[in-house]
């Protein structure tokens, strides 16, 4: 069936479009962006009045933990993709630290089968770079790619050996796979659970110094230059990391980077009161880091905003701070937090934000979507930019509630998400 979005504020940075128009899609692809859609309004056709709403290419999240297989009590394909579309994401990349991990083609195939059965968003699996995410032994990347993996990563188990990283990058590069890395020198973060600094000192908690992230960002960028392998730096959290990535890009390294909304919206002071919903890895840093990350987003050093959506059950978070697992959910708050913190404050234009959350993520891994060019997938997000709403974790589609934004009043609400021509999420529409 054909759908016509009439009178929308169409924002598609991939084509430089930022104007009021109608968008026409069929059950597969975008047909047209037009001033007058009446010629398309024939036969079986849903017409949606989009006055006052922003229409963008479906958001794409490069960094999500769907937890399936193995940790379905935290999240699964059904709940995770439902959370994604409720946050305006039509596609997510899922990380391999499951049980079993995504280190074998059969696991990838099994996951994609589940996505076909119960998923409502597109899911692009990211495979492990090493077997079992253990320090040694590369995975069968060629077979993994054939099975559907779109990249390889060491997320959650950062490679400590530069030699393993080097060989992994050389091997991935020949297959055209991007290596996504979680940058952390573990010798500097032993037993640590939050940012090292004044707040950790007051709370009596072992801190992860910013330099633990930065030495690996530097090492990995150098390795990208040396091997020529495309490198994507996951969840950048420090000012120093932004500076190093800027340098690497100037040197011509094939490096891209993402950050997450919490790294520019929150500082480590959110951990005060031993708030485990503000505990993630890398940890929340300082205001100077937040400012540098926004600067990095604006000047293109940081290509994308991802969520690092990391669900955990309530009983896991209701523990002593150092014992609680790292990670927060983000799919259902990412757009609104970013819109509120960046666009409403005038720091960033709406089209720049859409670029960071849709067009650039598509580019980083050469994924379908991220554009409304005629012929591209009918993946669409519709937002009400003026809608104010209050974050209530109890209302999340995600199985987990671990958000540091509980009770925040935000602006910008996803009201409809379409995947492949099908409206899979509607809020009052």
């Amino acid at each position, binding site marked *: 069936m054909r759908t016509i979005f009439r009178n929308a504020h169409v924002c598609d940075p991939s084509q430089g479009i930022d104007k009021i128009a109608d968008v026409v899609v069929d059950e597969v692809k975008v047909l047209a962006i037009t001033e007058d859609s009446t010629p398309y309004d024939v036969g079986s056709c849903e017409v949606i009045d989009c006055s006052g709403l922003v229409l963008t290419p479906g958001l794409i999240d490069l960094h999500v933990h769907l937890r399936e297989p193995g940790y379905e009590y935290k999240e699964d394909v059904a709940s995770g993709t439902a959370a994604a579309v409720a946050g305006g994401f039509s596609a997510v990349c899922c990380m391999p630290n499951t049980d079993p991990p995504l280190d074998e083609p059969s696991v990838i195939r099994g996951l994609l089968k589940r996505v076909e059965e119960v998923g409502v968003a597109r899911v692009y699996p990211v495979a492990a770079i090493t077997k079992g995410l253990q320090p040694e032994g590369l995975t069968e990347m060629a077979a993994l790619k054939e099975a559907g993996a779109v990249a390889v990563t060491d997320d959650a188990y950062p490679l400590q050996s530069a030699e393993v990283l080097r060989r992994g990058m050389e091997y991935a590069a020949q297959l055209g796979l991007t290596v996504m890395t979680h940058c952390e020198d573990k010798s500097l973060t032993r037993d640590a659970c939050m940012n090292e600094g004044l707040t950790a000192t007051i709370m009596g908690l072992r801190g992860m110094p910013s330099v633990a992230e930065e030495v690996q960002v530097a090492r990995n960028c150098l390795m990208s230059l040396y091997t020529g392998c495309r490198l994507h730096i996951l969840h950048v959290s420090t000012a120093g990391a932004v500076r190093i990535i800027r340098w690497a890009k100037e040197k011509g390294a094939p490096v891209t980077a993402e950050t997450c909304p919490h790294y520019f919206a929150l500082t480590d002071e959110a951990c005060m009161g*031993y708030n485990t919903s503000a505990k993630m890895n890398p940890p929340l840093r300082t205001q100077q880091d937040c400012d540098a990350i926004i600067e990095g987003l604006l000047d293109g050093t940081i290509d994308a905003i991802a969520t690092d959506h990391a669900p955990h059950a309530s009983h896991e978070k209701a523990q002593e701070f150092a014992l609680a697992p790292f990670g927060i959910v983000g799919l259902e708050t990412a757009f609104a937090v970013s819109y509120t913190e960046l666009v409403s404050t005038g720091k960033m234009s709406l089209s720049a934000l859409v670029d960071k959350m849709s067009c650039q993520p598509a580019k980083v891994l050469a994924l379908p979507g991220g554009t409304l060019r005629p012929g591209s997938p009918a993946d669409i997000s519709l937002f009400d930019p003026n809608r104010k709403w209050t974050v209530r974790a109890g209302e999340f589609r995600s199985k987990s509630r671990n958000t540091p934004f509980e009770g925040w009043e935000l602006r910008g609400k996803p009201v409809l998400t379409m995947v492949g021509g099908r409206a899979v999420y509607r809020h009052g529409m």
Partner: protein
Amino acid sequence: MLTDLITLRETEPEDIRLLLDTAQSFKEILERPVKKVPTLRGRQVVTLFYEASTRTRVSFENAAKIMSADTTSVAAASSSVQKGESLLDTARNLRAMRIDCLVMRHPQSGAAHLVAQALDIPVVNAGDGMHEHPTQALLDMLTIRQHKGRLEGLTVAIVGDITHSRVARSNLWGLTKMGAKVRFVAPATLLPRDVHRLPVEVYTDLRKGIEGADVVMALRLQQERMERGLLPSLREYSQRWGVNAKALEVTKPDCIVMHPGPMNRGVEIADDVADSGRSVILEQVTNGVAIRMAVLYHLLGGEASA
């Protein structure tokens, strides 16, 4: 009014003063031949200790008993904790037995805070990880006040493993709230990040750090610090940062020396200091009982005046 005692950072100066004054008035009870008053009769106090302790635990239990409260002690080693029960579940189960007050020690910073949020009875932090040990700081302040007659304007040098010390943190907040100046003296590897941004003067040199001090407090140095590569050797530590009679020549002549115990004699404190007339270490222990009586008294619904 106090509802829990978790940190001194979040305790009002008036409440600190009230606790010190109450403890001072209770000290007399400890000198009686029959050490028993009926104040907390019928009240149940549970001590829940996840870490080894002699001083603090006995001190709390005796304080409760002197005030006629009933006490039960739970040691994590012999409890359901060994069966994997979470801290919150353990605490809620104890509360379900209608206890009136929980005193707890735990190796994790924030553990007492976590429990206090979940329970509707007073929770007393008897030491949580590297965070705070409020009753230790209170008994330290009481001891200092007894010797100096005041806290305001005094200079207190805390020497040793600041990074890992809950005693240092609680004393910093308590002493500065009462108008004293605090110095931290430690090797650079035992100073936490951004410590300079706290209301404290920081020194890596012992002599400079204790020069002109009214009080020198030595902290326990744990063997583990060597194992983690934070210090080269006990020998170098004791030579550079050990508190001995020679080093104390630069303090005020009437400077007193304190230690929260247990002492490593010959490491952070020399015998010629620990056993000297300047040492008030055993008085600290006596005052500990009085302080804990005062804390229980006020938390369990005592009147505003003793």
